[in-house]
């Protein structure tokens, strides 16, 4: 760009302001395309969040033999913690287990400590739910454990469903991104086609390819940026309103991604996509006509 920077920006302004219809059409198209991409991003992020939330709840409950003392339980807890895949080990005493049971069932069992039938247990969380079977096998071999509960088959199904849902989400986002790319590129292509004679004239009066290309690249960037900003505004505000509503009415059903964080992600991804798509659209279209002129 260098010494021509001022000229290129002036050209950009002239092209945008003197072709208002074309400018509006191109910016409008990129808004709509990026809007669909933004919505699919929200879906994917929330599906991932939900799936992460569910799988992070996966745990092994190890019921400790009643006859072992606190010291042995502590030692067992330390040994389990040393297994690399283990994230956390929590000791649940019979009293705590009883309290929790009463709380969950919302009843008062009015039971003395001697009458408590619940055994002490350890609740083990792993880093990766897929490793839960292997971790359980290692705990079984340690001794001191009466029974292990972790619902292996349920976890396996849960992971499989989560994988399919996530993959579908990624696929959908990718298709949306490709759709947006083609739509934006084609719209920009149309704006360039409308000015192909100008490109030829510029070549014939001695302009180099980059001298011709720069204002078009800036234009593509503007279309992408404007499209990204407007669509991010719509998508983020929509998400903010919707998540507030869901949070008020169904707080435990959908653990939604925080709207502030989501807005930042949306803005970043849409801005990046818009700029890249705008630049790519302009570069490819202008280069095609430039090379036609050189043939």
């Amino acid at each position, binding site marked *: 760009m260098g*010494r*021509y920077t001022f000229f290129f920006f002036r050209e950009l302004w002239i092209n945008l302001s003197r*072709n208002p219809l074309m400018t509006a059409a191109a910016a409008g198209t990129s808004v709509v395309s990026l809007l669909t991409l933004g919505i699919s991003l929200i879906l994917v992020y929330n599906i991932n969040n939900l799936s992460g939330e569910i799988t992070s709840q996966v745990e092994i409950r190890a019921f400790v033999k009643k006859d072992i003392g606190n010291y042995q339980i502590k030692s067992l807890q330390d040994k389990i913690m040393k297994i690399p895949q283990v994230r956390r080990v929590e000791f649940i005493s019979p009293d705590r287990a009883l309290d929790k049971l009463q709380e969950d069932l919302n009843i008062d069992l009015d039971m003395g400590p001697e009458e408590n039938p619940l055994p002490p247990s350890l609740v083990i969380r792993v880093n990766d739910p897929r490793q839960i079977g292997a971790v359980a096998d290692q705990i079984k071999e340690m001794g001191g454990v009466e029974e292990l509960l972790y619902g292996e088959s349920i976890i396996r199904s849960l992971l499989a469903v989560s994988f399919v849902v996530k993959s579908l989400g990624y696929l959908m986002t990718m298709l949306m991104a490709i759709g947006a790319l083609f739509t934006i590129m084609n719209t920009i292509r149309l704006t360039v086609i409308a000015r192909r004679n100008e490109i030829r004239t*510029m070549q*014939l*009066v*001695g*302009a*180099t390819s980059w*001298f011709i290309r720069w204002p078009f690249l800036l234009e593509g960037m503007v279309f992408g940026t404007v499209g990204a900003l407007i669509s991010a505004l719509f998508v983020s505000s929509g998400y903010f309103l919707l998540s507030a509503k869901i949070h008020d009415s169904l707080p435990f059903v959908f653990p939604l991604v925080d709207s502030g964080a989501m807005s930042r992600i949306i803005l970043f991804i849409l801005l990046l996509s818009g700029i890249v798509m705008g630049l790519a659209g302009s570069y490819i279209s202008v280069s095609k006509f430039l090379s036609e002129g050189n043939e």
Partner: protein
Amino acid sequence: MISFQRVHLVYHNERDRVVALKNVNLEFNKGEICFIVGPTGCGKSSLLKLIYLDSMPSRGRVLVLGRDTYDFREREIPYLRRKIGVVFQDFRLLQTKTVYENVAYPLEVIGASKYEISRRVPQVLDLVGLADKIDTLPGSLSKGQEQRVVIARSIVNDPLILLADEPTGNLDPDTSWDIIKLLIDIQTTRGTTVLVASHDMATVDRSGKRLLRIEDSEVVIDRAPRVITCSDLKEGE
């Protein structure tokens, strides 16, 4: 300055093979003006295109400013074109730019300063008689005025060669003669080599300048300049 040596030019369409020029041998010297006449489609525009590298000869050599056009690398072509002003038959004005911006474009291309541009553009617009149309868009100009803007654009950066392809096409006889006089004036005052392709034999013949006639892709007449008489001038005015 410009040399054609046994030049043949053949265009290949999807089905046809069109011979545009056959065995052309020509020399144009520095500061010379020459009119190239002939019927539509005889090869006049093709001859000019070979000079500003919009076409390449199928056979033979074209030398521009002492260099074989085949020796120019693709990235060198824009720099050669900056030394050649072209008045296009279809004007080729940038429709979204004002008259001033159109004329300033070749200067922007060479990176001229804002001061230089603001000095030279009004000068050439004044020369072509369009000083009052600076802020007008091409769409609001008459054909004759558009033609003048193109001439202004083609000479604004003092090219060594000026090529004019049918600069009087679509113009009435009075305006045509004005344009021809303007081109002659540019040649005499600036020492520019000027080649003008025209099918308007009557108008260019009045100038008495060197005249080439092309028929069926071949140069059939290469007439040296002659002394022009008062009646020639009167007839033109």
